[in-house]
């Protein structure tokens, strides 16, 4: 039997350029909106955000482009004790997930079995984005492609240009 028949169909896979994942540490004494404001004031885009208040105040992660790291470190210097950074980080976006927990569960299982780190996750109604080690992004794609089927003539892609806000 064709193994592709048992794979779960998706529309596509998108890969990020190199990112840095910033984390506001729990109970740091700083508020997340201060971190967000400092980054915005320095015109630094966060490509993915996942925050929760389960430790009391809102805390969590956001990803920035690697080339913005030095600027972000300067912007966040006043609250530096409340921040840590993971790099290099890469994001893989799977679309559409169609709220299929079967698909999401299998993706997590595949990444876990291959010993690939999952640094964070954020979904929208249509897409699921996971962050992992940028150096192992191709391995992550291989793991995911074992359980999903992509449309004909579609390959995982990286954006070739960027829209930037002035």
């Amino acid at each position, binding site marked *: 039997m064709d193994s592709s028949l048992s794979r779960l169909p998706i529309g596509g896979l998108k890969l990020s350029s190199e990112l840095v994942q910033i984390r506001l540490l*729990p109970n740091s004494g700083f508020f997340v909106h201060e971190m*967000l404001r400092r980054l915005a004031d320095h015109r630094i885009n966060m490509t993915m955000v996942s925050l*929760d208040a389960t430790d009391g105040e809102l805390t969590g992660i956001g990803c920035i482009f690697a080339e913005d790291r030095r600027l972000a470190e300067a912007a966040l210097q006043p609250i530096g004790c409340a921040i840590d950074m993971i790099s290099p980080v890469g994001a893989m976006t799977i679309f559409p997930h169609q709220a299929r927990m079967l698909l999401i569960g299998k*993706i*997590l*299982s595949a990444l876990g079995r291959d010993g690939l780190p999952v640094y964070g996750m954020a979904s929208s109604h249509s897409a699921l984005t996971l962050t992992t080690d940028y150096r192992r992004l191709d391995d992550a794609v291989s793991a995911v492609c074992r359980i999903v089927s992509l449309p004909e003539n579609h390959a995982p892609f990286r954006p070739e240009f960027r*829209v930037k806000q*002035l």
Partner: protein
Amino acid sequence: METFAVYWEPVIKTYGIAERTGLCLITLDLPFSRISDGGDWLTHFPSRFGGSLVLIFSRPTSPSGLRLHLLLDRLPEKVEPEKAERVRKADAIENNVQPVQPVDVNLAAFDGFCSGLRVDNPVELVYFQGPHYGDRYGIASAAVTALVEHGVPLLAVVCTGASVYLVTPKGMACAARNALRKAFNTPDAAENPTNS
């Protein structure tokens, strides 16, 4: 990467602000070493508990785990109240806080690889999209600041692509939406007040 397009607007536009009520937020901690087990558990989640996924998101927890959140369209159906009550009280004692609210989930399914189960139910969701949000700075900051300034509590914030999701406690979605309307340029006709 080459940048050859730029974007600017005086007030951040949205395509409309929508909300959903009666949702359930489940949180659990998954060790990095058990991500595969967590994935296997998730594949069986719908058949065990019913309900549909609205959002899934996570972040690292110290020292070596992932805090995983599932926002569902309803409280999972199968219950085991006695054990749930024990866990709720144990969590409250451990964290030196008042118990948050009753947990009505069959916890047996979590045993062995997850910890820190928490159920917030019901919760509400306010969400919106806008032009090129994924490429623009300041969107999350504007949304969170708007809610903070209006005293709207937040349980979670998730941004990916062009979408922003704000999870609030019960009864706060309307206030959140009103706060966002003051901070963002939102077409009234595009708003979606339905719980769909």
